[in-house]
Structures are given as C-alpha cells and as structure tokens.
C-alpha cells in the first residue's frame, strides 16, 4: 500500500479499487459457476476466505484487465465496470454485474491524502463481497454453459489502447435489477448492482 495508515492517496485508492475488482470478479465467477469450482483455491483476504482462480488463461486475462483498469482509475476516466454473463447456446445476455465508479476528479489536482483508514474501506469492501456471495440465493440458476466478458465504460476522449476495442453495452431485455451495497475510498465511490434476465416461470 502506498497510502499511509491515516490517509489515502489517489494511487492507493486506485489500487484498492482494482484489488476489489479482482477479488469481486473472481468470487462472482466462482459463485455463478462460470468456471468449475476445482479450478479455484482458497485465499484469505479482507479477513475473509475468498476463492481465486488457478486457470492460467483466466488469470492472465484478469491481470491484463485489472492493470489497465488501475491506470484508468488513476486517471479518473472510468465510469463503469460491467461483468456480462452470456449464454453460449443462445448468445443471450443472462446477467450483468455492474459497478458504477464515481471518481472525485479534484483528487487529481491536489495530492492531499483523504482521511479515511484502509480498515474501514476494507470493511466496506468485505460487506460488498459478502453481498455478492449472498445474491446466489435469489439469482436464477445458470443451466446452460456460459461465458463472461468485462466491459469498461470510459470517458469519450480516452484513447483506446491496443488489444482493446469498442463494444455494445450488452443490455438484457426484460431484466430485474437489484442494487447492492456500495463502498467509497473517498476518492472513488463504487456502487454495485446486478441485473438478471427475468424468468417466465416466476
């Protein structure tokens, strides 16, 4: 951590948020069964046990995305991060895990650290991840083989880096939305929510 115990800088905030995304995405993939559970290992972080993937391809992909995301978080040009779960058979979007990121752009000019301890931030993050885990109880079962994709909503004036390309928003038609908890590092505020395809059976 680059930030001190008392305050938090923009860089530290970006790192914290990126770390949260890494763990959050991993736990969503584990909870939703996108990848087989035997490819995950147990890791203790945020004073709780989390699942991290061991699939080398997936690991590589996630590190790529998260490192790029960290850069954008540091530049305060990212607005949203969306994890889209698509059914492979019908090419239909079944779930969207959306993380709205509100950046305090004034933090870019002044390098004064904000007064918020990492512990309280981590507490907030922990409760968000707990909620993600708890959502499995009401989300519909994914019966068909699915794959996931990560969309990043950025500012329009951003230069698209190599290996990245523009994409559609991948909106679910006829969706139910559930807002989840949010947390803030006092520089980045992350509101999380999940939208899922309404099933006809209910």
């Amino acid at each position: 951590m680059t930030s001190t115990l008392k305050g938090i800088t923009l860089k530290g905030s970006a790192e914290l948020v990126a770390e949260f995304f890494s763990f959050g995405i991993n736990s969503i993939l584990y909870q939703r069964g996108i990848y087989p559970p035997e490819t995950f290992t147990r890791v203790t972080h945020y004073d709780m046990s989390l699942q991290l993937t061991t699939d080398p391809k997936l690991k590589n992909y996630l590190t790529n995305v998260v490192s790029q995301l960290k850069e954008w978080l540091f530049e305060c040009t990212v607005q949203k991060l969306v994890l889209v779960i698509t059914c492979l058979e019908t090419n239909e979007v079944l779930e969207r895990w959306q993380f709205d990121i509100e950046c305090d752009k004034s933090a870019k000019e002044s390098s004064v650290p904000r007064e918020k301890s990492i512990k309280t931030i981590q507490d907030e993050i922990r409760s968000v991840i707990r909620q993600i885990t708890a959502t499995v109880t009401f989300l519909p079962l994914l019966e068909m083989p699915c794959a996931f994709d990560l969309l990043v909503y950025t500012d329009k004036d951003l230069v698209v880096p190599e290996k990245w390309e523009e994409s559609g928003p991948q909106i679910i038609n006829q969706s139910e939305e559930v807002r989840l908890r949010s947390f803030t590092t006092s520089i980045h505020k992350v509101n999380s929510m999940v939208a899922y395809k309404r099933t006809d059976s209910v």
Partner: protein
Amino acid sequence: MDLEDDTTVLTTLKSFNSFISRPEHPQRPSDHSAGSGNLQTQYKRSMELLEAADRVHSKNRYLQLDQEKKQMELSHKRARFELEKVASDSARDLEHEVDRNQELLGRIKKLEERETEAAKKLSEQVEANCALRKNLGGLNKKLEERDSRLSTSNQAISSLKDEIRELKQKTQNKDSTISTQTLENQELQEQLDLQRRKYQEVSQLCQSLQAAQTSCSEHIIKIKELETRLAFQEQDIAIVKTVKSEVARVPDLEKELKRLRDDNAFLRESRENCSLLKEEVEGLRRKLERMEKTKEELVNMELEKEKLQSWENLGQSTGLNIRKPEDLSREVIQIQQREIALKEQNYTLNSRVRSVERLQAELRAEVSQQRSKTLEEQKKREMQDALVRRLQKRVLLLTKERDGMRAILESYDSELAPTEYSPQLSKRLREAEDILQKTQNHNAEMEVCGPTLVELEMEALKKQQASAADSSSLATKEEVSILRQKIEDLEAERQRLEEQNNILEMRLERNNLQGDYDPVKTRVLHLKMNPTSVAKQQRQQEVESLREEVTHLRELVRSLQDGGALVHSQDDSSMHSSSLDLRKQMESSELRNQRLKEVFQRKIQEFRTVCYVLTGYQIDITTENQYRLTSVYAEHMDDSLLFKKTGPMGGSNGSMQLMETEFSKTLGEMVALHLHHQKSIPAFLSAVTLDLFSRQTTI
C-alpha cells in the same frame, strides 16, 4: 436234478390239462343220449363218473404231494446253498489262513536268515574280540614302557626343580641388588635435582645482578637528574617561600571555601528540593489539568446527560417513541429532512420576497418616473393654461377687433345705402364673415378640445399620482396578488416539472441500471481476447467440425442407400476387414489354445496312468508343494503317503520330506531304515510296495 423237477412239473401240468379237457367229451354224449335212458349206460356212466371222481381225487392228492415234495426240495436246496456258502467261507478262511501261514513262513524264513546273519555277526564279533584282546596286551606293554619313561622324566623334573630354586634365589639376590641400585639412582637423581635448582638459583642471581647493574647505571642517571632537579628545587624553594606567605592566607580562604561549600551543599539541597517541588508541582498541575479535563468532561457528560434527559423528556413528551439512538438518529434524520424541506420552503419564500422587493423597487422607480412625468405634465398644463389665457386674450382682442370691424362696417353701412353697396363689398364682407366664423369655430373647438384634453391628461396624471402616492396600498397589492398568483403558477409548474424530472431521473436510473449509457460522453471498451469471444469461437469451430462430420456422414448414408458405398467406404471396409482378420486370428489362437489344453490333459492323464501302472503309485498334488502318493496295493482307500517339497521353490534339487499320516505311522521300521538310515525315498517306496504286495498276494 432241477431239470428233472421241471419236467415232472410239466408232465403233471400236461396230465392236468388233459384231465380238464377230457370231461367235455363225455358231457356231450350225455346231452345227446338223454332221450335213450337205459340204465346200463347210466350205470356205466355213473361208474365212469365215479372213476373219474376217484381219479380226480387221486390226482389232487398227487398234486398236493407233489407240492410238498417241491417244498421239501426247495428247503433242501436252501440248506445246500447255505452249506455251500459255509463251505466257501471256510475255504476262504482256509485260504486266508494259508496266506497268513505263508506270510508267517516268510517271516520265519526272514527271521532265520536274520538269525544266521546274527550268528555270522557274532562270530565276527568274537574274532574282533580276540583281536582287541591282542591289542590290549600290546597296549599294556606300551603302558609299562611309558610308566618307566614317566619315572625317569619325574626324576629329571625334580632335578630341574632344584635348579629352578637355585635360579630363583639368584634372581632374588639380583632383585635386591637392583633395588639398592635403584635407590642409589634415586638419591643421585635427587642430588641432581638439587644441583639443578642451585644452578637455576645461581643463574637467577646472575640475572638479578645484571639487572642491578643496569639499575645502578639508571640510578646514577637518575641521581644526576635529581641533582639537576635539586638545583631546580632550590630555585623553587625561593619561589615557595614567597608562595608560603601567600599560603598563610590559605586557611582563611579554606574557611571561606568551607563556608561556601556548605552554602553550596545547602543550595544544592535546596535546588534538589526545589526541583522535587517543581516536579511535584508539575505533577499536581498535570493532575489538575486532568482533573479539569475530567471536570470539563464531567460537565460535558452532565450536559450530555441533561441533553439526553431532555431528549428522553422530549421523547416522552413528544411520544415519538425515542428509546434507542437509532430511533433518535432516525428521528433526527426525519427532522433534518423536514428541516431541509422547511429550508427549501424558506428559500423559496425568501426568493419570492426578494423578487417582490425587486418588483417594488422597480415600481418605485416607475413611480418616480411617473412623478417626474406628472411634473412635466403640470408644467405642460401651466403652459397650456398660459396659452389658453393668451388665446382667450387674443380671442377677446379678436372679438373686440371683430366688434370694431363690425362697427366700422355698420358705420360704412349706415353711411352707404343698402343699395349703394357694391357686390364687391358684400363679397368681402361674406369672406370676412366666413373667416370670422372659421376662427370662431376654431376658437370654439379650441375651447372645447383644449380643456377636455387637459382634463383627461390631468386625470390620468392624477391617477398616476394617486397610484404613485399610495403605491404600497392598492396598485401594489394588486400587483403583488398578480405576482403571487404568477409565483404560485410557477411553483405549481415547477413542482410538475420536478415530478417529471424525478420520473425522468428514475427512468434514467433504470436505464443506467440496465447498462444504458450516453454515447456522447462515454464509450464502452473490452479486451479483444475476452473469454466470451474465445468460448464462442471454440463453439463455432466445434459446430463447424460437427457439421462437416454430419455432412460427411449424410453423404455416406446416401451412398450406402444408393448401394455405391464401396468406393467411399474403402477405408472403413479395410478397417472392418482388418478387424475381421484380427478376430479370426484370435479365434484360431483360442482354438489352438483349447487344442493344446486338450492334448495336455490327455497327455497328463496318460502320463499319470503310466506312472501309476509302472511305479504302482498314484501321485496327486493336494496343495502346493505337497504330493500324495497312493499305492496300487493299498489295503484301504485312505492309506496314502504325504510328501512335502522343501528348499528353493521351483528348483529341481529341492529335498522331499515325508509327512506324518495314519498310514505312515504304521511304517515306522521302513521309515527308520530307508529314510533315516539309507536316505533314499525310492527305496522306501519300493519297500512299501513290496510289503503291500506281499500282504495282498499271500499264497
């Protein structure tokens, strides 16, 4: 005899049959001759009948006797059979006895042979005894010789012992001399040690002497130094004397010093005390500070408590059910929300007031403008009044003129006769009158119009003035009411718009939740190589490959249906043929295996039977490494010998061991002889066969 019996039975049967068939014939003539009825014939016939009855009777008796005879014969036969059986049994017993006799004879023979052997051995033993006796004599002689040698050697030993004693004495003497010498040696060594010590002492003295010499020279140098020092000292003494006078003052100074020291010590102590006191003071101050802090805290706490009590009271008084801080916070939040709402209202009202004030200011400005206007108007009116006056004057003047003109005209008229006036004059007159009338009209108009206009203007001005005068009252009130209405309208509109805005925001939020975005401001990015696209590609590839396979298979099916499958399914057929070949090979190998098994079984059976026949033993493998041998001549089925193979497994040179069975227990002698003594299993086995054979076939 049996045959004869049979024949007799047959003859009797024949006679019986003939007898039974005979009476039929006599009955017929009796039927035919019933009509004749002569006594002769009747007598004859009765005689015949009697005879026949006798005959039957006799025959019956004969038969009875015959049966008895047969029974007798049967019993006789049985008796004969029993006798024969007994005879055969006795014969068998006899044979057995004979066999046993033979066996016993064989044994007797064997025993006789053994006896002869034993006699032979006895004679041999006797001979050996004689030889041994001879040896004994020889040995006795040798013993005597040895005894004599022993005595001589004993003598030699005694002489040697004497010598040993002498030698021992000598050695003792020598030992004593050696001890004395060693003692001397020790003394000498001690002396030597003493000498050495002395030498060391001397050498030490020498060294000390040298050291003394060197010290002496040093001392001399020192003395010189001291002399020079002395000289210095003398000089010093002079100085010292001068100093001493000064020194005389020293006690005073010392006293002073002591005093000062005492003072110093006292001061130091006081300083220490002071510092202690300071520390104490500091401690106390801190305490005091703490106390003050605590007091303040206490006061704060009390205040808080009071507050809380007041809160509680408030809760009780308001009945808002404030029990927990959460409730309180909720209440506070509600109150804050209310406050915010009220503030908003306040703000709106303030803004309204401001707008009203602004309007007022505007109105004031207008009023002032109006006033200035009225002033101007008044000025104008005054001007107009002046004008009017002037005009009236002029009118008066003009009327006067007109009157004058009329008088002149009338004078003219009077002067001139009505007929005398010329048309020209009349014309002029008319013209003049017209002009006059016009002017009069104008005047009238002027008179009519001017005041009305002015009055209107005046009224308007007056109104304005009035409105300006009580601006706060009527006009402003109306305006304010209008404005208020407007404001209310606007407020209503605002609320409506707000609601709309809220609805739109909700929709936007919903859209936002669903992932909608503003394409002007944002852009959505993702990695080109994301898991979804990879998975989709894989899927597509799979699907394509499957499709290809399906088409291929369809073609195959079609071609098969068409019957031209041979061309397309060459590889398949080759596969098939190869599999068929393999199957055939397998079958043939299995067949071979089976044949081999059969052959082996046959051969083994043959081998076993051959072994059985040749060696007289049936060999069975009961468990691994255990072989059961059953002899051909075994008296019972269970009589068998058990052998166990020991030693290395599978090795050809493993030794066999006989296991104990019921049968082997009875063969103690043979076991002892052939196995323990001769160590030959074949010999043992053949002995057993011979034994069993001899037992089976006793003559």
